[in-house]
């Protein structure tokens, strides 16, 4: 141990000096046992005033038992923060990932969840990652990526909450689809309510509505479909008989033409009061 005080000739040892020495020892108890070469038993006591626990073992394999970890043999490991807040959200637990490399999009930080499966070996059950879609200083955008394990394979993205407030399912449904479940293929890709004179009342994923003639409207979609096999559903709103059909020759990945007919025999194209349209398909 290094000397904490060297007495000079005729110097008097005061009680305050002893108190200071004792305080230093008590406040730096961990320094007395560093480097730690065995288990440290706290004996159901608290370790307080700790600034940082720093692990130097960087082993990457979480199943090999060599990854630095905090362990709790029973119950729930809890992280608590106590302060005087009343109406704000506390975040008692933080995860920080620093990098020495140049940050680029897709850089992120996450939490890995592991549990034992039938093989009694902890394996990755899932992860919650926050990933940058824009890494620019001051313009950062991040997505929350939900990762899960399917058929024992490595974790894969199952959904993404984007910085702009959207949620993107990662896959189409399988047969039979789960009940009440959101997939890519059951999300409406556009909807529209518009008048007959190219006046859009409300919409989603619509760029423009073109009045191409009496009873004829061409809808341009903001983000294209992947192909032309999408489905348009819609109704014309009118005081008298109207029927709506999508013009087979007018379907493109980014637009379609809807024709509204009256109840005459033969029917002729005639305006409704309002068009209500929606579309489903792959993007």
């Amino acid at each position, binding site marked *: 141990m290094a000397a904490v005080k060297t007495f000079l000739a005729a110097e008097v040892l005061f009680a305050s000096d002893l108190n200071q020495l004792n305080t230093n020892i008590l406040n730096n108890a961990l320094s007395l046992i560093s480097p730690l070469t065995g288990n440290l038993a706290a004996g159901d006591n608290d370790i307080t005033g700790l600034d940082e626990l720093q692990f130097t073992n960087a082993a990457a394999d979480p199943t090999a038992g060599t990854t630095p970890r905090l362990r709790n043999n029973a119950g729930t490991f809890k992280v608590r923060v106590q302060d005087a807040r009343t109406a704000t959200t506390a975040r008692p637990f933080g995860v920080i990932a620093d990098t020495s490399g140049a940050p680029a999009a897709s850089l992120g930080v996450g939490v890995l969840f592991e549990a034992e499966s039938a093989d009694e070996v902890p394996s990755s059950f899932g992860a919650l990652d926050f990933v940058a879609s824009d890494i620019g200083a001051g313009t950062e955008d991040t997505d929350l990526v939900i990762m899960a394990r399917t058929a024992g394979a490595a974790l894969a993205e199952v959904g993404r909450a984007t910085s702009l407030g959207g949620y993107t399912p990662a896959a189409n449904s399988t047969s039979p689809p789960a009940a009440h479940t959101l997939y890519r293929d059951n999300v409406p890709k556009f909807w529209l309510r518009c008048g007959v004179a*190219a*006046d859009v009342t409300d919409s989603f994923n619509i760029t*423009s*509505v*073109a009045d191409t003639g009496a009873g004829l409207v*061409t809808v*341009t979609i903001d983000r294209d479909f992947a192909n032309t096999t999408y489905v348009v559903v819609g109704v014309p709103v009118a005081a008298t008989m109207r029927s709506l059909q999508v013009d087979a020759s007018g379907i493109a990945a*980014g*637009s379609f033409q809807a024709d509204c007919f009256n109840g005459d025999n033969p029917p002729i194209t005639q305006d409704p009061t309002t068009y209500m349209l929606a579309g489903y398909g792959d993007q």
Partner: protein
Amino acid sequence: MHVHLLTRPDGSVIVVGLAPKARRDGEADATFAARVLARTLEANPAWKDFPVVTVERATVEPLLANRRFRNAWTVTAGVLTHDMVKARALRLTEIRAERDRRLATSDAPMLRTQETGTGPQIAAMTAYRQQLRDVPQAIDLSGIATPDALAAFEPTWPVSP
């Protein structure tokens, strides 16, 4: 808010209205309108060579709201207006449709008259139906100069005996 007026080779007009929710954050009106036009033409390439006039919607709103002769709209010197030749043709088509409806309505009375009526009654019904057939060609709409006057025009319909 702008609208784009595209003129087809036959002079008819496509009115492209912007979806307000397609506006990007902070996008100025003119930029928004230009981007929507570009996207609309990209998605509808058959229109890409049509002449385009972009106007404030409010300036054409009264005409857009009057759909009676929608298919006669045209753009003349940058102004959305009616092609009166087309409008007259549309009105004549309406009159023919009304004539056809009246003829169809007279089919059953004509048959009954032929079965049970007298000679003069048959002649009167036959004359009535002929007068109906002659109505369109007896009409001259060339002197009607405005869409409103055209809409108000009604031929003199013969009265069923």
